[in-house]
């Protein structure tokens, strides 16, 4: 038996862990809960590493498929089956690796929480669902995982269910995601109706076999490929928090911090990117939708980055940062740089998970405080947290040779290389976002770790570095934030130094990108241009850091106050997140509720039942009136008889 044959165990183990912890064990079995809750994803990680080694060494680049059982047969034949190909291999590694370390961290972070067991049950359930999403060999299994992670997100955002806000935020996340899922489902229906299969490999094959069929007009003035691509992309905007459906992610921070790290930064929210790359054949055939993807991605990136600049809650800063970075990934996918999208997905998973866990460590030390205005100067008390947070911030800011630099640079280069004036604009937007990213992230670093402590006396007394079980994952992830980029060092760099092209990730992922005739041509840039682009992105990142340093390192909160005083309008706009939530509430939620009440009170109660009651009343009235004629008086009946005869006579004569 080879390691790949145990593939099914990788999602099955966390599912089993969730079932045991959730249903069988009780709170008093804490050591056992820990052993299972961390052990199941740990074993999954080991199995995943073995399977990946097996795959890379023996099978690559052919996909490996494992059939489990038939979900349905007949005209709608869908299997529950898994697929390892270069794309899912990368995802598998990211999910199991980052997932495992976040579980380890949670042992410390959630250690004193009364819902410890429930927490691990949900987290394991999430791991299982996420692995289904990643490993599924067809759209249905992917969708099962897709919704499964959505459920776990709902449960974990609302983890502190005894408070009012978290369950509300969970509901919001689920409903907003469902809006995206609505489109995702329509896309699935379309592909099944037209191609009779949902299997990724077969779909790509069948679409490529007859490109004309995919490009014929279908619905909404779009081609078949275009319509489906649009549907999937709308689905992705929900799960991956892009404009216009990004509003749920900042609220999702109501969940425990490890949840934010795992679900709302490293894995689940990137599922939309994974889906778009998975179905890249459609996007390649629908350039107009690809353009839309790029524009939405770039717009989300910059909008979220600007909001991030004005947030005071450390987790909110990271949340908007995540939205912004996801925007980068979609920008990459939109310009056809699919490998770059996955590259950034992977590097982002490391540094953003590390940042979130770091913020968790800070919050832990602060006794639950998340407001950066009450922090400051924490680097003395939390040295390990500070160092790892700082490294990851450098990584996300795009400073070489850390991970974020290479992946972000590749996205910007891909955008720049794409023909068309619009893409130059998108490149400028991307570049500006890079500067903003460096700026707001270093603002967070300075406000949290530099300057003087601004919290209460008790908090100051309570400050402490987190235990090993939390700092070790931080160190591991920070290491990833440093080295993860090295697998994708651009071709130009190698060649400039006269070496062979060792862009490992590119070679590995190349088979994932479908070869559509006449689309997605490899950009040809001279090495000089490539170096210049890198220099530009480093320069703007340094500029962003410089601004943050000059503003917040010494002046701290005064800088914010000064900014607010200088540009009050902008400040209010950013602080209130462009009022998007309020606009949705006025334009969608309230009218819908009014419509619902109208349906109930007016249509149901007034018109339908009212009409029936009137009918019943008339019937009763007729009966009551008729009753008066039946008096039992014979002479009266004779009178009726006479009247009848007269009437009859009159009618017959005339």
């Amino acid at each position: 038996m080879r390691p790949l044959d145990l593939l099914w165990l990788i999602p099955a183990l966390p599912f089993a862990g969730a079932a045991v912890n959730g249903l069988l064990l009780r709170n008093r079995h804490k050591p056992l809960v820990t052993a299972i809750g961390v052990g199941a994803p740990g074993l999954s990680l080991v199995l995943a590493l073995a399977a990946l080694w097996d795959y890379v060494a023996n099978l690559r680049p052919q996909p490996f498929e494992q059939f489990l059982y038939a979900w349905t047969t007949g005209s709608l034949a869908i299997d529950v089956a898994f697929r390892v190909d270069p794309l899912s291999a990368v995802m598998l590694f990211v999910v199991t690796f980052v997932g495992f370390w976040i579980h380890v961290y949670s042992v410390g972070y959630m250690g004193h929480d009364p819902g410890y067991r429930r927490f691990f049950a949900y987290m394991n359930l999430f791991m299982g669902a996420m692995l289904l999403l990643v490993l599924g060999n067809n759209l249905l299994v992917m969708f099962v995982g897709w919704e499964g992670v959505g459920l776990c997100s709902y449960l974990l955002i609302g983890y502190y269910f005894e408070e009012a806000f978290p369950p509300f935020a969970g509901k919001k996340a689920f409903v907003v995601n469902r809006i995206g899922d609505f489109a995702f489902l329509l896309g699935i229906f379309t592909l099944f109706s037209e191609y009779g299969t949902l299997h990724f490999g077969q779909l790509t094959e069948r679409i490529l076999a007859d490109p004309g069929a995919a490009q014929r007009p279908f619905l909404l003035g779009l081609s078949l490929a275009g319509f489906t691509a649009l549907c999937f992309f709308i689905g992705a905007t929900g799960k991956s928090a892009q404009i216009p459906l990004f509003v749920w992610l900042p609220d999702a921070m109501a969940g425990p911090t490890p949840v934010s790290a795992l679900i709302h930064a490293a894995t689940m929210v990137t599922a939309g990117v994974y889906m778009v790359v998975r179905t890249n054949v459609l996007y390649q055939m629908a350039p107009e939708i690809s353009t839309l993807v790029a524009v939405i991605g770039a717009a989300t990136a910059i909008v979220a980055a600007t909001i991030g600049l004005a947030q005071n809650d450390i987790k909110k800063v990271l949340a908007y940062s995540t939205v912004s970075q996801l925007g980068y990934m979609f920008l990459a996918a939109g310009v056809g740089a699919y490998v770059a999208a996955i590259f950034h997905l992977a590097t982002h998973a490391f540094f953003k998970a590390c940042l979130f866990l770091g913020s968790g460590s800070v919050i832990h030390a602060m006794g639950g405080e998340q407001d950066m205005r009450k922090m400051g100067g924490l680097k003395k008390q939390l040295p390990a947290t500070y160092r790892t947070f700082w490294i990851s911030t450098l990584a996300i800011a795009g400073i070489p040779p850390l991970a974020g630099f290479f992946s972000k640079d590749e996205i910007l280069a891909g955008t720049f290389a794409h023909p068309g004036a619009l893409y130059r604009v998108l490149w400028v937007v991307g570049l500006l976002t890079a500067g903003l990213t460096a700026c707001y992230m270093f603002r967070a670093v300075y406000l949290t770790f530099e300057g003087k402590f601004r919290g209460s006396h008790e908090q100051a007394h309570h400050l402490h570095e987190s235990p090993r079980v939390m700092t070790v994952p931080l160190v591991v992830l920070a290491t990833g934030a440093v080295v993860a980029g090295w697998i994708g060092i651009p071709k130009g760099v190698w060649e400039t130094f006269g070496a062979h092209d060792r862009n490992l990730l590119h070679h590995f992922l190349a088979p994932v990108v479908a070869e559509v005739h006449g689309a997605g041509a490899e950009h040809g840039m001279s090495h000089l241009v490539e170096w210049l682009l890198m220099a530009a992105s480093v320069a703007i990142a340094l500029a962003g850091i410089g601004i943050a340093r000059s503003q917040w390192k010494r002046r701290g909160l005064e800088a914010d106050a000064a900014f607010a005083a200088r540009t009050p309008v902008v400040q209010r706009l950013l602080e209130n997140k462009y009022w998007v939530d309020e606009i949705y509430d006025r334009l969608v939620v309230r009218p819908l509720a009014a419509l619902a009440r109208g349906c109930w009170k007016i249509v149901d109660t007034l018109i339908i039942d009212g009409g029936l009651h009137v009918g019943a009343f008339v019937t009763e009235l007729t009966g009551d009136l008729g009753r008066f004629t039946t008096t039992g008086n014979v002479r009266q009946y004779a009178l009726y008889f006479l009247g009848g005869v007269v009437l009859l006579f009159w009618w017959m004569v005339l």
Partner: protein
Amino acid sequence: MGGSFLSLLLGDTVTRLVFFPTLAAVPLLFMGKAKPIAVKLYALAVSLVEIGLMLAWTAAHWDAAGLVVKDPVLPWLEMPSLSIVYEVGIDGISLPLVLLTGLLLPVVVLGSWKGVDRHWTGFTTALLLLTTGILGALVALDLLVFYVFWEVMLIPMYLIIGIWGGERRIYAAVKFFLFTMAGSLLMLIGILWLGWTYGRLTGLWSFRYQDLLRLDLPVEQQLWLFGAFALAFAIKVPMFPFHTWLPDAHVEAPTGGSVILAGILLKLGTYGFLRFALPLFPHAADRLAPWLLGLAVIGIVYGALVAWVQPDMKKLVAYSSIAHLGFVMLGILACDLIAWQGALIQMVNHGLSTGALFLLVGMLYDRRHTKKFEDFGGIAKVVPWFAFFLVFSTLASVGLPALNGFVGEFLILVGAWRAGLHLLVAISTFGVVLAAIYLLHLLQKTIWGPLTREENRGLRDLDVREVLALLPLCVFMLWIGVAPKTFLEPSRPALEAVLADYRARLAQPAPAAPGLGASRNPAEAGRSFLVDLDAPDRGVQP
């Protein structure tokens, strides 16, 4: 006749499955003075025997090809020009619903344990007679027999609501009765008309399903008859705008009554469309399908919206039924094999998840004698197992993949999309979003958030009996969701046969005068007409 009916009753037959509950009700006549617990245990035992009989029958007689398995046909009323027979059988279309009825019976008994606080003998009798009515209507292969059972269902349900119901039980019971009656009378006229027409053509009146299937009627007659049947069924489903009896009936009915009502009774409406209205009058069905589809989709959105703003949990679940059955109707009217498979499994799904939701609301009601949202909030901490089952059932109802609701909705929507109903499917899929809104609203208002009422602090969590009532439902919710093939396959051949027959008849224009087509024994029907059912069906009209 008596003798042979008796032998059917005593033999291993469909008839026994139908009439065993009635037989079992006879001893209750002598148990008037018995203690309630004895009656309850008796009812539980009977229901377990019934499900056991069903499983035994299925194991022994079920046709692997999924086509109809009949009892010997008995003459009922023989006259020179009239032959009414007693003909019953089970095929792949009725089997899932028959088994669902069996599954729900013990669940209802367990669920009523506390809620029904008086006249347990009467309650059990009504319940058992109701079961006979439901099963009879499901297995009837003669339209007059079907009608008799159809009406038999009415009385016990009327009593259950009217005697064991809530405060406005009389209003609700009368409303339920009048609505249903109004529809079914027209259907009776339709049935009689069909039998008479058959008699005019052959010299012998008949109400047998397989005989009446041979009738080829002019479009205009089909339209009238289809209208009569469709009205009866649409009220039962219920489809918008004939639905207003349902929320009242549910709110007033005792828990067990609601479970049976939502779980099975409503399915008789959708089953009627699939079994009778469509196959008997294909041209009319095709002509009127757009209108009915419109009503189905309105029902999906409308039911969901109204459910969302209800102040009463039970009313929310009742309106959700309207939305869910809108999906079933969409699937049936799409006339696509996948959609039909979805519609059939969705009937079962709705019985499971809505049944569970009604049970759960009833369990709260048993404790606090209220089912208003304002009286709850934040009780998850106090009653964790209740919360678990509520979340589980709600998620099944939302259509979360890997649970049952998703299977039905997915198949219905895929099939309808394949049939070319793009806009309607898009709107219905949006109904899935609305389902998330109102069902999560249900959770939000009851179990999440801070505890709003001091009196809920001492709420008891579920006991063993209640868990036993919920567990079978939840097991099937998960099983159907994870491995739907097991539940879809047995029904496929029967659905294929009916659909093929329907398509074949539709392919020929309706005659100018009533005529008699080829024999269409449902057991063999379709085999000879087999067409490529997987070919996307875009506009059946030639």
